[in-house]
């Protein structure tokens, strides 16, 4: 059996290679589903914005199906939705994705997981990438989601994006805090 290849940091100069075509608008006019915008910042343990991070997202379509050969659910694929996005943070550590609210997908217990967006974080200083999830405030399924339940109650709020008051748009706020008191929950799977 072969041993897996070790991770190394992306370092400070990845954007020329990985962000040639930033993908932070996942929505086309014909994409099905409720439009949402996710905005947030990446902050380090001193509360300083991280201007050289890259955020990747991966999510199911509005019907809860992933565009992937191993998702053979009966739910429909959406020809106008890939489900993948990635973008770099700006000088203020900020990022933004325009996407749709994902449908619920089944969990390992065959029950539905709460709607969520899978997030992978890369940056100089991160020798391994970090994995987290964006859940949406107010979802009924949040109460029974297995991953949320695996997290200490006091830290769950770090995984739940909160709506901003922006007229006519569903804008959710989700900060990624790499370290410290308000540290975002990162998962090991």
């Amino acid at each position, binding site marked *: *059996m*072969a*041993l*897996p*290849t*070790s*991770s*190394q*940091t*992306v*370092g*400070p*100069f*990845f*954007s*020329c*290679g*990985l962000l040639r075509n930033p993908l932070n608008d996942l929505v086309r006019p014909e994409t099905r589903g409720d439009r949402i915008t996710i905005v947030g910042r990446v902050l*380090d*343990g*001193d509360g*300083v914005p991280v201007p050289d991070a890259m955020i*990747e997202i*991966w999510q*199911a379509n509005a019907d809860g199906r*992933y*565009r*992937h*050969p*191993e*998702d053979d*659910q009966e739910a429909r694929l959406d020809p106008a939705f*890939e489900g*993948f996005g990635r973008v770099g943070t700006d000088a203020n550590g900020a990022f933004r994705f325009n996407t749709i609210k994902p449908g619920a997908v*089944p969990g*390992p*217990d065959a029950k539905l*997981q709460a709607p969520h967006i899978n997030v992978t974080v890369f940056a*100089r*200083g*991160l*020798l*391994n*990438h970090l*994995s987290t*999830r964006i859940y949406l405030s107010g979802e009924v399924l949040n109460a029974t989601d*297995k*991953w949320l339940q*695996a*997290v200490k109650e006091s*830290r769950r709020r770090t995984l739940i994006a909160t709506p901003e008051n922006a007229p006519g748009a569903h804008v959710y706020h989700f900060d990624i805090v*790499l*370290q*410290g008191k308000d*540290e975002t*929950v*990162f*998962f*090991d*799977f």
Partner: protein
Amino acid sequence: MKSPAPYRRIANEVHPPHLYPDYKSSLARAPSHALVRVKQTLSEITGPSRSRDWRDGDADLTHANGGEALGERIMVAGRVLDEDERPVSGALIEIWQANAGGRYAHPSDQHGAPLDPHFTGIGRTVSDDRGAYQFMTIKPGAYPWGNHPNAWRPNHIHFSLFGAGLATRLVTQMYFPGDPLLELDPIFQSVPDEAARSRLVAKFDIDVTQPNYALGYRFDFVLRGRAATPMEA
């Protein structure tokens, strides 16, 4: 629907710890809480590797802007495998690197070495049915960095891979054999296991060379393999 098998867990010594004090940038950015261990779901077993828009490759970095890049031409070739040594086909592989003088074509790189107008240092390809890939490029130069006094990064090429699922995402760096800077480099040394570290060093391979044109290095990737049993129903 059927339940696909999850990916196996990786031994602790393979990946670096998040906090590695010799690597200064990790001090304020490494998480201080333990990661929360969870069972994989369809969300982690699926992933963006099969995205339709990524088929356009550029695996030859030695020409840009109407001219030939300076430096020692090298072919880097290998395979993407899983832990059971099965080929991973369709993996998106992206690379970025410094030029022969040790300078990135990136606005934040302040190193005084010259830029090469004919070298952008970025490439992209997709592994074939045998998991094989190759890049024709220039051997990157070493360069100084601010981690500690007189710190130099060894020659390296950055690699980003999307395997079949989110759980197999990998970003790493490929190093060169015999580089005296490796034992002084905190990023390379952050990998705890010596055997795992040595696998980040490419092997010179005469069979990969292009006669009268380029030296050849072999570098294989091993992504997480599948567990024997399906996800818990």
